[in-house]
């Protein structure tokens, strides 16, 4: 059931019948969902279900893909990664991808400002005070939580208002997961539209408006936050927990 506000919100991203391949291996089998402006949507599912591949296909990292991905009306299939990024999509990968040859500050300031409205360097360091004190350290010398903060912080610099976050809570201590959750909620409150890939259901439940359940490269269900709360049994059957 959708609320009136959800119905009125503009669709920013529309994925239709998306299939994707790694070499000859077909990983996604016709995925469809859409994302509305200001919404926080999670992709949930078992390991290997195709959640990360969905994000990588949207971003153009997975090159062999068919179907349709439209962002603000523009078709993304056939576009190069940098062209997709310049449309205002920020991507934070699962492995965080901190550059070992760069310092924390260089990692943070590496992405160029693509659109107005991005956070300035000083604003980012104020929002992530740990990074200020470690600015000259090698990027990969940070703790897992700090690396995750850095990975999210640097894409906020670009001015992208649409974020793809791949398992930001993975492998982190509960207290850090809580901090990341608060950060994501703050971003949502500032009007960012977010797709979050997450296996941590408790974490996903806390932050998301809707949940897209992915299984074997297909969307098998789409649940509102309220439905997730009321029908946990159904969700757990999808996740096999």
């Amino acid at each position, binding site marked *: 059931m959708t609320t009136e506000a959800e119905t009125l919100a503009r669709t920013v991203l529309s994925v239709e019948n998306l299939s994707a391949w790694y070499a000859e291996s077909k990983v996604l089998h016709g995925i469809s969902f859409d994302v509305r402006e200001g919404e926080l949507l999670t992709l949930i599912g078992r390991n290997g279900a195709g959640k990360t591949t969905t994000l990588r296909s949207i971003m153009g*990292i997975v090159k062999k893909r068919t179907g349709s991905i439209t962002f603000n009306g523009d078709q993304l299939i056939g576009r*190069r*990664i940098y062209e997709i*990024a310049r449309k205002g999509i920020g*991507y934070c*990968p699962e492995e965080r*991808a901190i*550059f070992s040859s760069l310092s924390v500050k*260089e990692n943070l300031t590496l992405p*160029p400002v693509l659109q107005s409205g991005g956070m300035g360097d000083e604003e980012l360091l104020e929002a992530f005070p740990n990074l200020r004190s470690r600015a000259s350290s090698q990027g990969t010398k940070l703790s897992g939580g700090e690396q995750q903060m850095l990975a999210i912080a640097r894409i906020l610099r670009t001015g992208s208002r649409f974020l793809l976050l791949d398992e930001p809570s993975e492998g982190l201590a509960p207290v850090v997961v809580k901090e990341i959750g608060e950060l994501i909620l703050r971003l949502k409150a500032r009007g960012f539209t977010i797709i979050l890939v997450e296996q941590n259901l408790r974490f996903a439940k806390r932050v998301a408006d809707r949940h897209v359940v992915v299984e074997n490269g297909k969307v098998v269900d789409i649940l509102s936050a309220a439905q997730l709360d009321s029908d946990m049994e159904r969700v757990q059957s999808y996740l096999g927990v």
Partner: protein
Amino acid sequence: MFDAISPQLIFGQLLIGLINGSFYAMLSMGLAIIFGLMHVVNFAHGAQYMLGAFVTWVLLNYLGIPYWPSLVLAPVIVAVLGMVMERTILRPLQNLDHLYGLLATYAVALIVEGLIRQQYGSSGLPYSSPIPGGVNLGFMFLPYYRLWVVLFSIVTCIGSWLLIEHTKLGAYLRAANEKPDIVETFGINVPRMVTLTYGFGVGLAALSGVLAAPIYQVSPSMGSSIMIVIFAVVVIGGMGSIIGAVATGYMLGLVEALTKIVYPEAANVVIFLFMILALLVRPNGLFSGAEKTR
């Protein structure tokens, strides 16, 4: 044996070592930059060095353009040819095994060398020094042009190192060496960066060729003869390490020269002996990771 070694011989060989080291450093730096970003072992590097010298000779003899404008023109011309090669030959191979890139560049080297030999013959062509004369230091005669080559190459190596290690452009390059797809997700046109980087590496090779033209004979085989040493330099320094390539280039130039004093017969093999020892002690190269831990 050592009693017979005169200061003139030692300083003369040190100068030769520094000059050879300058060429080793500039060539291996270009090779390391290209390998770092593209993971292509650019076997055409020697041919591109030779083209730099030949373009300089052609500019003078056909168009009357002297050395100093050629110092800029020839590397730019060869770099543009390199960028065309990257777009037409290397890019279609980028998703295949790196061996294909190696073979393709080797093929280009053979074709370029063959065409130049066909046109200009095998014997070297002379190119007179743009800075004639020299200074007598008492213990040796130092030609001005050789001093210029050593100083210019040191400035070029330091400049290139500063560009890569201490500028935003260099940060993009270092990041793209590690994770090109992620750098592209920041909206950076990595394919264009690859083309420009290849052009820069090729331009460095051609610049070395311009510097070499008045010292060595401008000949089709000048590139292939130096390339084996350059590969040894890059391997010893650490594949893709800029600072490793430069430091090892100068070091091996001096080692080679000093060996000529002590045991001339070993001068041609000492570099490869050094390479074997370096690989046994540090298989990833003497300077691998040096840039990462700064």
